[in-house]
């Protein structure tokens, strides 16, 4: 009798682990796969993708010398940014051992300008910084997202995941509810995507503006009737990191076009 129970118990625990294993095995898919063909066409065509305006603005800032050192990003990284290593761009956000923190691509750009050209450091998600980020990330288009997941990042990604799986606001859903559990289903006329980060900064068709990943998280939280995490807060960085780590292996599409 005891033996039967043990076998049953083993069998049951095996059955219970199947969904968890399956959840891990889900293949990452870009939001591109979930949008309408017309939206894809808008994204793919350089003449119709409205996000390209942000790229242009970013490039202008990249070549701007109005600072104490009379120096532009372009002086080191070339006018069109081609001296930047696209493989390295695809690694952001990165972990800095020196300052023991997550460094977003925006922060890296702002610091580089500040340290080497005397530009004023820009706060996270400042419109100019989003334009610069869009320009730089666009250089790495087609490159595969490659965020570090080992070492110090393991713990941080785990913390980001916990935030991702937490319910927020009056609508009381977690990110995971839509972007893990109901991917591909329709919410009104919209198909739910996996909420990947490879297309950011993204041009959003509804507010009609270029949007950083962190801003998109805040917008999602607001639509959950929740108090969004503050710009540049630890929480938003952890969530952004977790989302980008989920996107490992997906090709960078910045600026993607989405709703």
């Amino acid at each position, binding site marked *: 009798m005891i033996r039967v129970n043990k076998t049953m118990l083993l069998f049951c625990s095996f059955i219970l682990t199947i969904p968890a294993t399956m959840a891990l095995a889900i293949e990452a898919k870009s939001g591109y796969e979930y949008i309408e063909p017309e939206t894809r066409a808008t994204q793919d065509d350089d003449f119709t993708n409205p996000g390209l305006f942000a790229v242009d603005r970013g490039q202008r800032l990249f070549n701007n010398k109005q600072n104490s050192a009379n120096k532009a990003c372009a002086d080191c990284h070339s006018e069109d940014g081609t001296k930047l290593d696209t493989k390295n761009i695809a690694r952001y956000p990165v972990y800095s051992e020196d300052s023991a923190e997550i460094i977003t691509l925006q922060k890296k750009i702002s610091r580089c300008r500040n340290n080497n050209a005397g530009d004023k450091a820009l706060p996270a998600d400042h419109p100019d910084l989003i334009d610069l980020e869009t320009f730089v990330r666009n250089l790495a288009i087609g490159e595969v997202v490659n965020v570090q997941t080992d070492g110090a990042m393991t713990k941080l990604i785990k913390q980001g995941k916990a935030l991702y799986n937490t319910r927020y606001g*009056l*609508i009381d859903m977690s990110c995971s509810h839509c972007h893990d559990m109901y991917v591909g*289903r329709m919410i009104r006329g919209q198909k739910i995507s996996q909420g990947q980060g490879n297309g950011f900064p993204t041009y959003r068709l509804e507010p009609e503006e270029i949007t950083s990943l962190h801003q998109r998280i805040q917008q999602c939280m607001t639509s959950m009737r929740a108090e969004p995490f503050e710009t540049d807060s630890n929480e938003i960085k952890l969530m952004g990191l977790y989302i980008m780590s989920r996107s490992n292996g997906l090709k960078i599409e910045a600026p993607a076009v989405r709703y």
Partner: protein
Amino acid sequence: MKIFFLILAILSFSPARASDTQQVMDEQPDAYCHWQVTDYAIVEPLCGLVGKAQRGREIVSDSSRGNCLACHEFPIPDIEAYGNIGPPLTGIASRLPTTMIRLRVVDTRKINPMSIMPGFYRDPLLINRPGKGYRGRTFLTAQQVEDVIAYLATLK
């Protein structure tokens, strides 16, 4: 000196606070009525209110109120798009008694803790990080919930 600063602080903070509340919601939230689950059902109507089916039908389709159409299909014509996250609700009243429908609208997580469905009358104290203007509130008012239930009860 301390008092001077205190007055200064009150003077500089109160206008901002007043405009905050104004901007957010005009009315104070209704007092929250507690409810009881028995056998996967809530037998008593919320706050003892009586629902009106016609009003419920409007709330169901209104994206700023119930927005039930975002996830469920209903027998309501001329709708651009229904969601398919939850089950279709056509004929729900022939599958569930009203008292069980009530629990599902009020707080379906009493049945499935992992459910994606918002609780339309969950205790406001249980809400994590409610947005400004939503603190102390339920998703719908007790009257609105009873109206929705009255409408759902007609879907036989």
